[in-house]
């Protein structure tokens, strides 16, 4: 398929877009897609990824392409063709071949941001105070706090409160 914008290069990507209130699709080459600002949901690298991976693919000996990921059944060939990784386990399975590509995108570096929760949330001192101070009707009070927490989008506190309410209802709550 030929790029619908320049009519010259082969189209490498199909862009979904909204035109005057309707969903439509346009086939573009990487250059035109970037020029027109029709980028993937998360940025413009997704578009180049197929090409980037494709470059690596050509250098690969044939028999290595037979390796399939146990998590999703993908071969490296499929990842390269679509620019998409099949599952989290692919990053292990094809580590050697994905690493140079990841380095080319991000540089030789590793993760420095947040990590998934290690343990169950514990009650923070501040919310513990709020809860402890209310001695009269703990269940009602906590339900009220929960509503407020959800309204304020304080989901951490809400999670703690919800568990306490559940415990109270089940009669497992020990003071």
């Amino acid at each position: 398929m030929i790029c619908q914008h320049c009519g010259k290069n082969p189209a490498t990507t199909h862009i979904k877009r909204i035109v005057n209130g309707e969903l439509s699709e346009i086939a573009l080459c990487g250059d035109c897609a970037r020029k027109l600002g029709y980028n993937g949901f998360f940025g413009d690298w997704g578009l180049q990824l197929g090409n980037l991976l494709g470059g690596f693919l050509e250098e690969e000996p044939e028999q290595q392409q037979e390796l399939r990921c146990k998590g999703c059944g993908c071969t490296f060939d499929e990842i390269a063709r679509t620019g998409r990784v099949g599952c989290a386990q692919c990053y292990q399975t094809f580590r050697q071949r994905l690493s140079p590509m990841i380095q080319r995108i991000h540089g030789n570096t590793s993760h420095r941001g947040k990590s998934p929760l290690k343990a169950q949330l514990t009650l923070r001192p501040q919310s513990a105070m709020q809860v402890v101070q209310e001695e009269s009707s703990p269940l009602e009070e906590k339900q009220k706090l929960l509503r407020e927490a959800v309204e304020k989008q304080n989901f951490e506190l809400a999670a703690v409160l919800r568990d306490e309410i559940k415990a109270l209802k089940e009669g497992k709550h020990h003071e």
Partner: protein
Amino acid sequence: MNEMKKWYEKSGAEGDVVISTRVRLARNLRGVPFPSHLDDSRKKRVLEAIHEAVIGPNSLFSGFFMWIPVASLSRTAAVSLVERHLASPEFISHPEGRALLLSRDESISVMINEEDHIRIQVLQEGLSLKQAWKTASRLDDALNERLSFAFDEHLGYLTQYPTDLGTGMRASLMLHLPALEESGIINRTASNLSKLGLSLRSASGEGGEENGCLYQLSNRVTLGLSEEEALSNLETISMQLLRQERGAREKLMQRIETQDTVARSLGILQTARLLGTREFMKLLSNVRLGVSSGFLKGIAPETLNRLSVLGQPATLRLPSGQEELPGMEQELLRVGLVRKTLSGA
């Protein structure tokens, strides 16, 4: 009709240039292939797991989020979600096995089974990166309490596209840059920003063809930088861009031709009997320039934010319940909305 104001009905910090802030987080469930490698029945199981965590009987969100299966939506309603920046065109193009979680003020949405299992999005008016991140991160924690996420110590959160590895976070600002666009230096600016790890691109890719001088400025680097570092980098550089735009606006608004264009644009918005999408967005952009520079008085910036979202084609015809609307009727509806909104009714 609703006392709760939507994010696009408000105006926030640095609102003369920054229309809105958006923070998105990509997360995937551990041990489940990414959505494009799931058939409909396995996608359904992912939906059920997340539904249970978020909407189920023990959930703290049940009153907070609406659960919207994409397949249950009319075409118009689905497109309107994109026009309101709540979902991507890709998301609504394959409705089966996908659902959207949406907070009632439309500031928080979660796309389920788009390119990743979970894509959290927080939208806020004006410049509000830290607040938007805080909200997104809290929701991430709350979901993580029930669901375990694919993560690697070195690669961070594991995502379908290797470009999102690490924090899985894209923060972006929707900017109105009429003066930089007019001066013709926007392409050079974009390529300079790209060297700094940011991307500046026309906002047209998501909402429609005519962008009305709207641009998205976002972070590109997700691996090797913490979320806070990426956000403060984005904020610092955006403040420089804001100064440039404001400087250029001042000069631009001194020109009698610009003043004429701005004044006429308001006149046309107020008196036109038909308004096409493209013309409407252009006029709105001109009026926004006039309002933000103090040249036009008596129009609140939030009025313009509201119009630019509610005046989009599918969102306009949504209340009529009709899937198709002849061009002229759509334009008449738009004229009605514009007049009502500008007169403050």
